[in-house]
């Protein structure tokens, strides 16, 4: 395979060059910009950014929502993934297709559908008022709840699919073996299933968490300017306020978080291999 190293390097060169010029260099310039004020290297940009209550609020909200979305999709994800794995081969195919289908629809279209469902005269409010659960329509749109619902729907498949594959890769009969040795379903989950599917959880968790932090369309449409997230704030700083310093700071935070999350979760995943 490596018989001809030179050819290998040659074949890699165009892609490498493209990534270097088109991605890495601009990102480095951007990141550098976050640490510069005038002509000096400084942390002023960060101090200014976190000095404003609104920015702090957006920062905290973004992480809170990211964590909640990740946790909730993990909990529901295990349930769904186990049901899919237990299902017969025929219904398994159908269930997986149903899970994957939303991934093939544009996030913009999917998010607009939520406007229809969650709006003042949308499906949910009409249903709630007509059965008399509420007198006036609830305000769901442009709240954290709406963003939460949108994000869950957007990223749920990315949690379930890795969980399904790691559940399917569990050795046969370990669950019945644990049952017969006296494990309650609770113990079976925490002592056998969870440790053996940790890698799937880590992959799914990373995708959902980083995805939630960096989603733009969903918070923009369902949260609007009332529920700003780091991404929507970033866009506002650049296109409305022309404030590139804050924008660069947000970009650094987002990139750093993505990398940190990945490193942290990778370490968690490798614990059981003893590496």
């Amino acid at each position: 395979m490596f018989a001809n190293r030179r050819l290998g390097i040659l074949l890699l060169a165009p892609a490498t060059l493209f990534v270097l010029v088109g991605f890495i260099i601009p990102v480095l310039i951007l990141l550098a910009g976050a640490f510069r004020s005038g002509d000096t290297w400084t942390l002023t940009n960060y101090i200014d950014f976190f000095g404003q209550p609104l920015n702090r609020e957006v920062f905290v909200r973004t992480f809170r929502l990211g964590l909640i979305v990740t946790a909730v999709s993990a909990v529901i994800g295990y349930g769904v993934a186990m049901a899919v794995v237990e299902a017969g081969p025929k219904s398994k195919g159908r269930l997986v297709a149903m899970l994957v289908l939303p991934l093939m629809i544009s996030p913009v279209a999917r998010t607009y559908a939520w406007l229809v469902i969650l709006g003042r005269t949308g499906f949910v409010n009409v249903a709630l008022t007509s059965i008399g659960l509420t007198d006036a329509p609830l305000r769901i749109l442009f709240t954290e709840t709406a963003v939460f619902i949108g994000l869950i729907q957007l990223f749920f498949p990315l949690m379930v699919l890795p969980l399904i594959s790691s559940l399917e890769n569990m050795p046969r009969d370990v669950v019945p073996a644990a049952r017969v040795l006296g494990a309650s379903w609770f113990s079976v989950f925490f002592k056998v299933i969870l440790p053996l599917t940790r890698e799937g959880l880590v992959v799914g968790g990373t995708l959902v968490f980083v995805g939630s932090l960096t989603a733009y369309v969903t918070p923009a449409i369902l949260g609007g300017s009332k529920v700003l997230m780091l991404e929507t704030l970033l866009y506002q700083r650049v296109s409305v306020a022309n404030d590139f310093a804050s924008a660069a700071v947000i970009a650094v935070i987002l990139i750093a978080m993505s990398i940190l999350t990945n490193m942290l979760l990778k370490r968690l995943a490798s614990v059981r291999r003893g590496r």
Partner: protein
Amino acid sequence: MSDFLKLDKLTLSYGGPTPAVENLDFSMGKSELVALLGPSGCGKTTTMRAVAGLMKPVSGTITLDERDITRVSANKRGVGLVFQSYALFPHLSVFENVAFGLRLARVPGAEIKRRVDAVLASVGLSHLAARQPRELSGGQQQRVALARSIVVEPKLLLLDEPLSNLDARLRLEMRSELARLQDELGITMVYVTHDQAEALALADRIIVMREGRIEQAGTPEDIYERPVSIFVANFMGFENCFELTDGKLKGIAAPSFETGSAAGVAWRPHAVVLGQGPHTGTVIGASYLGPVVEYLLSTPLGDIKAEAPASAPRHAMGQAIAFDLPQAGAVLLARP
């Protein structure tokens, strides 16, 4: 025979048109080793999973040690199970695999250490306690699975084809080890297998299953020497099994002995007399098996397997040869 384990009209189904097991009745005594023997798909593994509580019966009851356990969940039955795939926990060391059941039962740490060490010693794995399961050979994994099941002292231990993934030599070694453990510990065991030699060597009693029903139950001697049906006879190494119609064999003269109401008759290859007799067949196959040569004869009755000492003159392929199916060595079968 006491009823330590008793299955009463047990019917099990995977939801298909015919149940996997139908109206199964059987009981066994304490410290007995019973083998469930049968081809794949006969319902033996299904029966065992139901006894372990991994499958709900459609109807019928399971009683263990005078307690109805039909509705008791798997983790509260006190029934151990050694899986064909061993099903060791890959994320736990050998020690922790064996300690798994004891930890769940909240046994104190010092006692866990003592009991796990003792059981690992008895299966000869003390030196591997710190290893991970994937670092072990098949035979060693098998021993861990066994140790893990017996350390919790189940009332009943079920073994599902425990030796089928091992090579021939290791299988013999594990077989005698199982026999030794059963002898030492006096565990009541149900042993599921499709290997008649294993069943004969290990079991106090054998239950031959076919299509979800018991075909024959008895001591190894009963089953081996007095099979009740062509099915059991085939399974027990009778190569020549024939149906009888009104006491007659189809295609050749009636046997020269009283067949009574038997529905079938069978001979082992060594019981067929070659070179003399009232019948004639053509040699269509010959295999040298060391001490004997096994011939396959084409006869009006069907193909017949016969053995002759390797020292006797050989019969050539295509040669017509006289043979006899004598009364000595014939086994009458009650059912087809």
